[in-house]
């Protein structure tokens, strides 16, 4: 029998077309905020200073410079070393939080977040106070200098710790108790259970955490600039080419090179994601740890040690913000908080930052969550979906400085109809949204994927439009995740420097940039004070989230209780 049956022409309802249109809109925003600017910048890698096409000449010139290999190697090994230090530490910490019976888990969980809440200059300053040539704990370095790889790695460990710990805590929290019972029944020893049950479950989390840490270290330029001395890394090379030499073409070349390790790490993550299928079945029984001294005491010690280090570093920065002039006049004073004395923007920089961060949190969360829902449920599949998904994963690999420069070149191009955004707060908001898009998207997608895949089908069978189901079911259920995303965006936009340093206008200087300016001007105490102020704002927002979390839970998550 030959296949004569006519193919079915599927009618696409108006609603579905509107949802596709929504996805198209999201794609447009991402194109405008990421792909086109980056494209504009990367084109520069193939041009000379006058805009003539020169092919690979810039790359040839760069490869011929010995400093490339050195900087690339330095970037790789400091990132690798940081990863090797951070991931086991974070694993131990996360393990203690999820698989032990130590007291004070809530406090440890809060302390763990401290580094993400502060601008990256804060640990750098604190480390100088502690381990610099006049540092209080200088002897601990045995004559080594903090300015260089030691300082970079130390500051990066502090800065990256919460990212790794968060991912691993999530990975370890989804354990199936039945696997442990099975292993115990089979008389497996503790080490064997750890190696055969715990580690495989956390494998994806470990890969993910390593990738995130590695990428963060490779792309961050604030820490190597302040504490790295002349130790060259790729990120400072971009800075040198762009800011020192005003050579955008070469800057674009280094930017491209900088994308390579980050993209490699990203692909590794994708690969691990593909391997993950089937590690956790939907009917897992949650694991509840039982007290055991031999495990709990060392873990408690580890948590105390790590927390002391984290709080200590922040504490030193706070103290540093209160001294008159370190290290010669340690009289305490509040004068450093009188920002108007140090910077024309003064306190207004803080309000500028808060406004940008708020707008980026609100708009970014709406954009990210709606787009993630469209991708997963509303209008999934197709080339459009693939394109949006791919682009959503990119920002993690793009260093802030590269993104900032891309924004100038793209938005300030005379032919760009969106040029009016340049110099306004809106461009800083867009930049913030795009810069932190990946993690926000992953959080949203994960939350949505946990929902029953048939919600929309049920809605359709009941003739309820998908958007109503989105509003009545998806959003309310995901409210905690949505809050997480918003707070993440707020905190990161508050603290970021590298992407916005090219973009602020006369009235829109953010506080994080003011920190850098004051530090450059030799007012380290004032810089520390502004960094502490930013930390205070982000901490308050985080605390507000925790507090309101209870309220939100009571009002909207009542159904979770049994």
């Amino acid at each position, binding site marked *: 029998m030959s296949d004569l049956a006519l193919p079915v022409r599927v009618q696409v309802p108006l609603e579905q077309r509107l949802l596709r249109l929504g996805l198209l809109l999201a794609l447009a925003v991402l194109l405008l905020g990421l792909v086109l600017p980056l494209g504009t910048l990367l084109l520069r890698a193939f041009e000379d200073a006058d805009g003539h096409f020169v092919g690979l000449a810039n790359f040839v010139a760069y490869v011929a410079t010995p400093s490339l290999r050195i900087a690339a190697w330095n970037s790789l090994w400091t990132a690798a070393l940081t990863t090797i230090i951070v991931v086991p530490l974070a694993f131990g910490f996360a393990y203690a939080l999820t698989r032990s019976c130590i007291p004070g888990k809530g406090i440890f969980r809060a302390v763990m977040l401290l580094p993400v809440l502060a601008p990256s200059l804060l640990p750098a300053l604190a480390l100088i106070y502690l381990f610099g040539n006049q540092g209080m704990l200088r002897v601990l370095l045995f004559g080594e200098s903090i300015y260089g790889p030691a300082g970079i790695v130390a500051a990066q460990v502090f800065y990256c710790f919460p990212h790794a710990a968060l991912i691993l805590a999530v990975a370890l929290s989804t354990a199936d108790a039945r696997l442990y019972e099975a292993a115990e029944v089979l008389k497996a020893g503790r080490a064997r259970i750890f190696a055969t049950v715990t580690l495989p479950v956390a494998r994806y989390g470990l890969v993910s955490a390593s990738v995130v840490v590695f990428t963060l270290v490779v792309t961050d330029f604030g820490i190597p600039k302040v504490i790295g001395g002349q130790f060259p890394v790729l990120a400072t090379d971009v800075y040198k080419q762009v*800011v020192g030499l*005003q050579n*955008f073409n070469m800057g674009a070349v280094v930017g491209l090179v900088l994308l390579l390790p980050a993209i490699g790490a990203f692909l590794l993550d994708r690969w691990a994601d593909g391997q993950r299928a089937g590690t956790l079945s939907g009917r897992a029984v949650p694991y509840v740890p039982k007290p055991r001294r031999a495990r709990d005491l060392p873990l408690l010690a580890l948590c105390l040690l790590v927390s002391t280090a984290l709080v200590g570093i922040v504490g030193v920065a706070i103290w540093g913000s209160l001294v008159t002039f370190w290290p010669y006049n340690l009289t305490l004073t509040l004068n450093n908080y009188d920002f108007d004395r140090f910077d*024309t923007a003064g306190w207004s920089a803080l309000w500028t930052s808060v406004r940008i961060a708020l707008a980026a949190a609100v708009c970014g969360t709406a954009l990210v969550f*709606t787009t993630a829902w469209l991708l997963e449920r509303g209008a999934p599949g197709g080339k459009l979906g693939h394109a949006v998904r791919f682009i959503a994963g990119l920002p993690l690999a793009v260093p802030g400085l590269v993104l900032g420069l891309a924004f100038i070149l793209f938005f300030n*191009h005379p032919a760009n109809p969106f040029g009016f955004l340049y110099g306004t707060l809106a461009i800083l908001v867009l930049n913030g949204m795009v810069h932190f898009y990946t993690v926000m998207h992953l959080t949203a997608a994960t939350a949505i994927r946990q929902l029953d895949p048939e919600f929309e089908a049920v809605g359709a069978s009941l003739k309820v439009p998908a958007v109503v189901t989105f509003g009545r079911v998806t959003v309310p259920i995901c409210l905690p995740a949505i809050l997480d995303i918003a707070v993440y965006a707020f905190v990161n936009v508050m603290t970021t420097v590298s992407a916005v340093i090219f973009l602020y206008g006369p009235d829109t200087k953010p506080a994080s940039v003011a920190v850098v300016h004051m530090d450059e001007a030799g007012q380290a105490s004032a810089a520390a004070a502004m960094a502490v102020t930013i930390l205070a704002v982000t901490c308050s927002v985080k605390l507000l989230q925790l507090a309101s979390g209870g309220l939100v839970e009571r009002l909207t998550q009542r159904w979770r209780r049994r």
Partner: protein
Amino acid sequence: MFRRTLPAAAFALSCAIAAPAAEAQQRTRLTVYTALENEQLAPFKRAAEAAVPSIEIAWVRDSTGIITARLIAERQNPRADIVWGLSVFSLLQMEAQDMLEPYTPRGAEALRSNFRSDRSPMTWTGMDAFVSAICFNTVVAQQRNLPRPSTWADLLKPAYRGQIVMPNPASSGTGFLTVAGWLGAQGNDAAWTYMTQLHENMQVYTHSGSAPCNNAARGEYGMGISFDMRAVTLRNQGAPIEIIVPTDGVGFDLEATALIRGGRNAEAAKRLADFAVSRQAMELYGRYYALVALPGVQPAVQNYPAEFEQRLVSQNFRDVALRRDAILREWSSRFDAKSAPRN
């Protein structure tokens, strides 16, 4: 419905938050790009707005490198109306790219001849000279028994091994000005030999021009090569530093003013440029710098040697600016590759 109202509401909210406050104003708002020090901005703005009531100054301030990079990146669609207080090397770089609007401010001819553009009409006018200088931490010196240097040549002493910091000229304008000064004062070959020897005493090349002085002030290092102005701020905070202007010829840079080609408020910008060369403005500059562009203005700044002016090497800014790429390439090939930190 929810999905449609949510983004709309969010957008409206963001617009409300993001829209710059609309100010009803009569005065022309000038966007002024500058690398002046933070503490100079308020008095400069006050003085300029008092002298030219028709303008209002909106500063965009950042370090020399960042401001220059921004100006060049914005070349096709300039946002700045005028640059007031930026290294003349940067301005010459921009002149070469045809980014400056020629205009001879009223009274600019009175300026010292090497403190203004040699073009007619002028492309830039100088304000004051800032020099590379040594920030010398007296406390550290006492602890480590370091003698006080008074010349660049002194820095080669073995006693200073690992005690000196200077900015990487490829990252920092201050670093470049220092290197250019050595080349000007000592001649090409001698200067490169000098730098090679100095490299042995160098602890670190920083990415920022202020960092060496900041670090010296905090006692991180014995001395930092930086620029004179930075030290003043630090000393006011109680840093035990002395600022040394070496006697064997220092490189100097000018802070200068220039109109941006394609600026949106050309007329108002010209009024500010006129003010920038006025005697009143020069007296203002003199509160911070020892040598200003207009002869006969007595600087009010303290602690500068009387024969300060004689210590400056004579240099042709345009010539140095043109050789900048070659100098930096040479410097990088000699010292950048040896990048491991030295102890």
